[in-house]
């Protein structure tokens, strides 16, 4: 079997699993809304990994753009109009534009300094959401909005009350975002991202203006993150200031590393494990995070390339 046909089979298997998730998750003790959460958090982890795994830049404040996406969508639904597409667009723009503007200040920092500054910026947005109660709802979060059914003219999608329909709506959004990511990574620009990850000095001396390319990659990642955040607000009909907190950023990094940050689909697997474990363990113990943390430590120790990275290597 050639490398190419193997990749194709894996790709078909992943999409088939996603397409039929509402049907196979239920018999295994899951439910459709759980699958939707996996998709949304998976998209967020993949957006982070677009930067972390493919440009080699660790942002530890990416929850900020996720949370801003959620608030953008929520406030659009609450204050502007009861339109789901408009809410998604507002979320993408709020998360993406804030990320792009602050990203311009970040790109000269490297390594741990970059990570520290991203945490700081992320916390700024967390405290804004936390304190500005009249607009954001403060500590209680933004409430009083709900995703609106989508009217396609011939067909009305009841994404509010029908969980399956909503899952497929989210899957459609997920496919758009992930398709765009894959497309970018296969482009000449995507290859310069990988070049920067592999060897920054060499890239510079190949004529790549490193800072500008990192900024573009960072901004794209923020737009994808805003997209995921907007969908998250639709999932919960609620936007939570803790969605911007650095501990949320840490969760995303954990999902990406656990699943495998060098592989495109790894973070989705990481998000799946994280969300399912959280759902299952949190009904048993409040200390569910210790078990997730233990698993994370084991994965990092024994599969430093993440779970998917490990499988890919053992096949090769």
């Amino acid at each position, binding site marked *: 079997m050639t490398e190419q046909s193997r990749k194709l089979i894996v790709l078909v298997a992943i999409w088939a699993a996603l397409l039929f998730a509402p049907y196979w998750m239920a018999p295994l003790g899951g439910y459709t809304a759980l699958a939707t959460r996996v998709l949304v958090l998976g998209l967020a982890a993949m957006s982070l990994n677009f930067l972390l795994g493919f440009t080699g830049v660790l942002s530890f404040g990416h929850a900020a753009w996720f949370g801003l996406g959620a608030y953008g969508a929520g406030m659009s639904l609450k204050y502007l109009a009861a339109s789901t597409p408009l809410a998604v667009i507002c979320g993408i723009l709020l998360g993406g534009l804030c990320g792009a503007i602050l990203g311009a200040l970040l790109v000269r920092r490297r390594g741990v300094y970059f990570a520290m500054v991203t945490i700081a910026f992320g916390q700024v947005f967390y405290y804004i959401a936390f304190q500005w109660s009249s607009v954001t709802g403060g500590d209680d979060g933004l409430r009083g909005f709900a995703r609106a059914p989508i009217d396609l003219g011939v067909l009305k999608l009841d994404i509010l009350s029908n969980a399956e329909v909503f899952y497929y709506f989210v899957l459609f959004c997920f496919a758009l975002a992930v398709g765009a990511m894959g*497309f*970018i990574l296969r*482009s*000449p*620009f995507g*290859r*310069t991202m*990988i*070049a920067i990850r*592999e*060897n920054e*000095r*060499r*890239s*510079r*001396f*190949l*004529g*790549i*203006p*490193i800072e500008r*390319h990192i900024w*573009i990659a960072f901004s794209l990642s923020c737009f994808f993150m805003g997209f995921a955040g907007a969908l998250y607000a639709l999932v919960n009909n609620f936007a939570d200031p803790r969605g911007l907190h650095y501990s949320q950023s840490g969760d995303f990094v954990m999902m990406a590393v656990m699943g495998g940050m060098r592989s495109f689909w790894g973070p989705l697997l990481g998000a799946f494990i994280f969300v399912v474990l959280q759902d299952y363990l949190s009904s048993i113990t409040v200390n569910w995070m210790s078990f997730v943390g233990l698993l994370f430590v084991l994965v990092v120790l024994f599969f430093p390339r993440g779970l998917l990275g490990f499988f890919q290597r053992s096949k090769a």
Partner: protein
Amino acid sequence: MNVLEIKNVTKRFGNLVAVRDVSLNVAKGELCAIIGPNGAGKTTFFNLISGFFPPTSGTIAFDGQDITRLATHQRVVRGMARTFQITEIFPELTVFENVRIAAEVASGYRLRPWVNRAEAAKVQQHVEDTLKLVALENKAGRLVGELSHGDQRAAEIAMALALKPHLLLLDEPTAGMGDQETYQITQLIRKLHRDSSYTIVLIEHDMRVVFNLADRVCVLDQGRMLAMGTPKEIAANEAVQAAYLGNAA
């Protein structure tokens, strides 16, 4: 016509003067070797040319234009390519992918979200031609990190060549190589110089390589230009012998 004109360049790091008032012109098609004892300022001088940092004083002109304050990537776009003393490559990518990144940047595609078929075919052809030039065409699919030291050097040179440079800067191309590999790289540089008429400036420790290849040799010592001339003149120069052998000679 001079490809490179360096006038009275000085570089200080605090109290240390790494390069002191050095001038050098490199003519089109010339192969100029820079030699000197350890700590003579050779690599600093190279870093000044390639834009790693700007000089404290003095000017550098490339193809008749002042580039003294230009950033690295702007110099590369104007046709300057370099390799490093310690090989700088993309170890987890294949030889082909390594060179393709350089070829795409050189074609001005670095910000492109896609390339059409004709453009991709052109890049492919360019990469294949470059790999043939450095005799790596049979290893195109191998990961660069898995190649021998000599082949990694050749891959790094291929990346520089894929940029279609007017000036090739090679920092100790034979560093850490055995006799066989040194011979192969020397042959490659000779071929690039004689057959493809590249303008080359190189730093080298191996005197056999220098006297074999260079049209002109520059000797740096304690940041100053000690001597400049044909390999024969340099071999006969007493000041150079003193610098290399110590004052006992």
